[in-house]
């Protein structure tokens, strides 16, 4: 089923998508309509154009493919499903996501993966092909963030304050130079084969989705970032 997005108000567009009597719904000519896929279940959405903020918020049992760029807060608090972006992502991509996967072919904005969590069998994954802005994985509490840094040379592809307040989960960042100025509580390790095995399925997925050669990915090293002891429990004095 195909729905046209041009000049349609966001509430009407989202209503049409929710009420569409088909599991596969294609929406063409999207021009910044917000909340697409928020609260949609059991559908496969294929989007052309540029969806607005909060695409796939609270996503549950739903997959979204975007042929274009996306804006901010994609996959906010998503529970499961997949969001695939054939373009660039914006700020707070995957805010507090608990499960499912987000693949972005190009770059991400600020605060990607902020407050990402995990719970039992739910283990969220974000894979960004290019670079991201500052505060990557801020307050990260679970899940896996992979930044491939494709097209980035001689600079760590994450901006400043990467992993501030991180207290769970893991980040894998591909770079030809080691990270600098990370928060002191993070544990940084250059990946060996066993580490990379943990993310092989996601890298294979990325390569397949966006037609990238797997061998090219492994031409550079990966750095693995995990949280060490945090200071939250030691700063207080009962009064």
């Amino acid at each position: 089923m195909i729905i046209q997005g041009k000049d349609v108000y966001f509430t009407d567009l989202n209503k049409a998508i929710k009420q569409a009597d088909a599991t596969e719904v294609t929406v063409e000519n999207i021009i910044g309509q917000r909340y697409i896929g928020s609260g949609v279940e059991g559908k496969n959405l294929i989007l052309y154009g540029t969806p607005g903020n909060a695409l796939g918020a609270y996503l549950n049992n739903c997959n979204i493919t975007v042929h274009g760029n996306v804006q901010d807060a994609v996959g906010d608090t998503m529970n499961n499903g997949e969001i695939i972006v054939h373009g660039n992502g914006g700020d707070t991509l995957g805010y507090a996501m608990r499960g499912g996967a987000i693949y972005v072919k190009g770059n991400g904005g600020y605060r990607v993966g902020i407050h990402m969590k995990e719970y039992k069998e739910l283990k969220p994954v974000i894979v960004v092909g290019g670079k991201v802005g500052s505060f990557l994985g801020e307050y990260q509490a679970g899940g896996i963030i992979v930044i491939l840094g494709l097209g980035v040379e001689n600079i760590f592809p994450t901006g400043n304050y990467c992993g501030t307040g991180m207290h769970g989960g893991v980040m894998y960042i591909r770079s030809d130079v080691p990270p600098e100025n990370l928060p002191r509580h993070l544990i940084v390790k250059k990946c060996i084969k066993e580490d990379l095995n943990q993310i092989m399925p996601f890298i294979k997925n990325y390569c397949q989705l966006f037609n990238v050669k797997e061998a090219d990915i492994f031409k550079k090293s990966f750095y693995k970032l995990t949280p060490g002891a945090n200071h939250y429990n030691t700063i207080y004095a009962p009064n």
Partner: protein
Amino acid sequence: MAINFIHPEFEIIREEKRCIKCRACERQCANEVHSYDQEFDCMESDESKCVDCQRCVSLCPTRALKIRKTDNRYRENANWQQQAMEEIFRQADTGGVLLSSMGTPKDYPNYWDKILINASQVTNPPIDPLREPMETKVFLGKKLNKLEFDENGELLSEIPPQIELEMPIMFSAMSYGSISENAHKSLARAATELGTCYNTGEGGLNQDLYKYGANTIVQVASGRFGVHKDYLNAGAAIEIKMGQGAKPGIGGHLPGRKILEKVSRTRMIPVGVDAISPAPHHDIYSIEDLRQLIFSLKEATNYEKPVIVKIAAVHNVAAIASGIARSGADIIAIDGFRGGTGAAPTRIRDNVGIPIELALAAVDQRLRDEKIRNDVSIVIGGSIRSSADVVKAIALGADAVYIGTAALLALGCHLCRTCHTGKCNWGIATQREDLVKRLNPDIGAKRLANLVSAWNHEIMEMMGGMGINSIEALKGNRLMLRGIGMSAKELEIFGISHAGE
């Protein structure tokens, strides 16, 4: 060993003639104050661990116990009082940020106590609520300025979603994790029986409590704990927590040691991992951003649920509320600085924010001036202690109130203000199984229902005295209020006259 500068705050007085050495006090005290000395066949106590929660006093079968304030004191000094000195000792010992629980105990002005309520005499006679109809039902949500009907008198206008309450009193947000499962059960059952709502706080919703959904407000805060589609659709409304009266401008932190199996399940995070709610929502830096979160929640729930935005009462609260009223929110909840908390930095709790009475008066007036008062309902909280406070709040412009501390008191809390230790002897602010089961949710629900229905009756009596028979006619009716012992500026902010005027 370092010298401990701080003398225990309390003394435990045990009347030896009455004590039968049954050791009930020992079993009841999670702080391990009491112990039995076999050699001398007597009970002993370590008062340094006592928090004055009164559990042992209440359960001593022979009333042999009482707890009193120690009369040991430092040399008197009006400027450097004992508490100020002890707080310095504590920080010098630990290097820590001082952490306290519950609302501020400081002696700030309480304006509810400086406001008096009117009554009718001779003309416009009082109404007796026992014999005549009296309505305390309220609907919370955006009200339309105009209703349209078709030629058959059928309503054409689409009424925005509302919360329907039998009385203008709800239980404020207290998360599962900060309070116990049995406390939550008590609140949920009482809210259902009373026809009002309780609030999950930012701790998710226990599966067993989904059945009380029609009387539940589900909260979404910066940590997004336990938030998923079913949760959002489970309640009568969704509350976005931007701030809390006891700790404006800072977030929350439930330490990993309190995230046990059941708490982990409702928060949907692993056992033992810290649950950190940052001070800001990192996707909200403006009213436009707030609007985005409100509408993403509305989209996820098909526009069927009113959205509440909860803020702390701070200096510019009127301007902030005006922004929120324009953001698409259906209800604004304002929490005053005397409001409770499971844990907050002492300095913030005792110094940041403003009293709810002033905030309410300012917000209601501002929204009226801007002609947007009907676009939102106003719910206030932050130390509502009696039905009289409720009546004054409604006459100042609130649609309903939240009660938190009062509800906990009904459950047995004695305001010992040590919730942050997790060793609540009353089974309220704890996750220890043996302590939680001390609070029977059937009894808890009954006590809460007793309290609120008693208040509701008192509200009707006060309304009746004013010759008012519906809560709607009391709302924003500041003519029913007079100030006592207030300055001209205070009266101006409240928009009321002084008693005698």
